[in-house]
């Protein structure tokens, strides 16, 4: 097991290098550098050029890359071009909001989807199955921005049940339970908007995984041996069906974070997604590179964790 862990960690090293390379290379595609958004008829070009030199934007590309990489290794992601703030700090102060949103959407998706998927599989070709399937397909085929807009319009503006945007009641000075309840109210809509699509996917996945397992020989054997259906389903089938779902996490995580770019914009949620979208249009390369690296590393760690968990729970995996 320990060997396995070490090997997996070693395997991540080329990935990390790849991540920095891709993050950096993408930024070279663009015409114009971040200073170009700052050019207005009222600024001295001299000052703009000075800033450009200060940021090293006048250096050859590979020099810029190694400079950036060595800074990165020492924990410095550089400074935002326009505001001059440390990129790492800008990202870090937004991580909690994004983490809260994606984690709750993820939890919501899995907690609701797995039981529904199991029901759908057990009641295959029943009305419940058809309804759930229909719901799942609807979820998969609705663009998430559209779902978000509809949620705001219906639940916040028309029904006045929940706030439209933000992440807590600013300036109300709520504390304790009231503060938590307040934050939950703000969390609900963006969580639904972000989580629904994944809910649908996880549900479909659970269903087919469950059906797969139910058709396996050992389940048939168990049934043939007259073991109680409930025990067959929950003790034998469900456990094995859930295993592959863990691997789905690796695919869901980057998709969820990608989705948060849209959802955070709609709900004025102060997370990394909005920072990223703003940074794109402002050509804030240091921020974009920092975000890409950080998010990719988070996903990498998530995958690593999933793999280790998988190895841990699945006795069939050999660590050698």
């Amino acid at each position, binding site marked *: 097991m320990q060997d396995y862990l070490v090997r997996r960690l070693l395997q991540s090293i080329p990935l990390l290098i790849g991540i920095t390379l891709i993050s950096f290379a993408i930024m070279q595609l663009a015409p114009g550098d971040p200073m170009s958004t700052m050019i207005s008829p009222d600024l001295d070009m001299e000052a703009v050029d000075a800033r450009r030199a200060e940021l090293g934007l006048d250096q050859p590309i590979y020099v810029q890359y190694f400079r950036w990489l060595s800074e990165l290794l020492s924990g410095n992601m550089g400074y935002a071009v326009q505001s001059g703030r440390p990129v790492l700090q800008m990202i870090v102060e937004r991580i909690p909001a994004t983490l809260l949103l994606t984690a709750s959407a993820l939890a919501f998706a899995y907690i609701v989807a797995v039981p529904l998927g199991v029901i759908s599989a057990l009641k295959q070709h029943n009305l419940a199955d058809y309804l759930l399937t229909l719901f799942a397909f609807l979820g998969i085929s609705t663009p998430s921005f559209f779902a978000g807009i509809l949620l705001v319009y219906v639940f916040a503006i028309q029904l006045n049940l929940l706030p439209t945007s933000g992440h807590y009641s600013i300036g109300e000075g709520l504390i304790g339970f009231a503060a938590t309840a307040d934050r939950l109210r703000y969390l609900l809509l963006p969580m639904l908007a972000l989580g629904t699509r994944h809910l649908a996917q996880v549900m479909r996945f659970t269903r087919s995984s469950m059906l797969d397992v139910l058709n396996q020989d050992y389940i048939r054997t168990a049934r043939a041996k007259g073991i109680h259906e409930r025990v067959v389903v929950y003790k034998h089938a469900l456990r094995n069906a859930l295993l592959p779902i863990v691997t789905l996490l690796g695919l869901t995580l980057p998709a969820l974070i990608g989705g948060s770019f849209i959802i955070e914009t709609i709900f004025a949620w102060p997370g990394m997604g909005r920072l990223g979208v703003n940074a794109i249009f402002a050509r804030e390369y240091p921020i974009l590179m920092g975000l890409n690296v950080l998010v990719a590393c988070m*996903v990498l760690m998530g995958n690593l964790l999933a793999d280790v968990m998988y190895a841990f729970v699945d006795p069939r995996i050999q660590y050698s």
Partner: protein
Amino acid sequence: MDGSVSGGKVEKSAIAGHSLLQQVWRRFRRHKLALGGLVVVGLFVLMSVFAPMIAPYNPYRSFTRSDGSYASWERPSAKHWLGTDDVGRDVLSRLIFAGRVSMSVGLVAVLVATAIGVALGATAGFFGGLVDNVIMRLTDTVLCFPVLFLVLIVATMVGPSIYNIMIIIGCVYWTRVCRLVRAEFLRLREMEFTEASRALGASSNRIIWRHLIPNAISPIVVFGTLFIAEAILIEASLSFLGAGVQPPVASWGNMLHQASSFVVLSRRPWLWIPPGLAIMAVVLSVNFIGDGLREALDPHQQL
């Protein structure tokens, strides 16, 4: 169960390819939703192909009122079945032409993604060793990124024209095909018929093209189908963030994007309900078709 079945099956099909297709079709036909999906998608494809003949008006032309002003935001009427948009263009005509754009974005993106994915996946799976290692590490690396963000960055930077968007989506989303094809190749490589061909002195090229690709085709087809739906949604999301297909060219994505304005959402439903329904109908149908194909092509997964 363990590939030898499907391997043997396709070998047989080389002799009687016709009957295999018939078999697949027979199984596919049993999947009612998939069949329905096929009909819907077929209709949309026809609509797109014959758009210039079907569309009542030029989708880029604004109508004027009698006082000379542009007929913006007219309600649906006998003249304009789906009303007009913010600069007075006929929404129905735009919807029809937008279908061309959205569906070709989906299709071309899939072709690009599949081409890259198959090429890399096949290379990795067939040659194995260092080549495999390098390609798979690259795939893993790309998979770590939130792809929508990557697409958004690249689309904004190189300029969001239709062609750029098709290619960018394809270039970023090839990883899953790559993994799929590689896995399939690894499995097939060890199979008896491959060994046999190799023993008979067949070149790598011939083995790949004659034996491995045809055998790996079904998961690729299933994936490709499902990804068309995904790509259409990605284009819509890009439109929302301002980096999708740009007006005056209409796509379902940028038409639906208008719903993010409250006045359109609440008072001008003719602007967003039709493209919204079109997207959902096509995406849903394509998903059904993909599901049907999966079951038809993969008989041992008969559920």
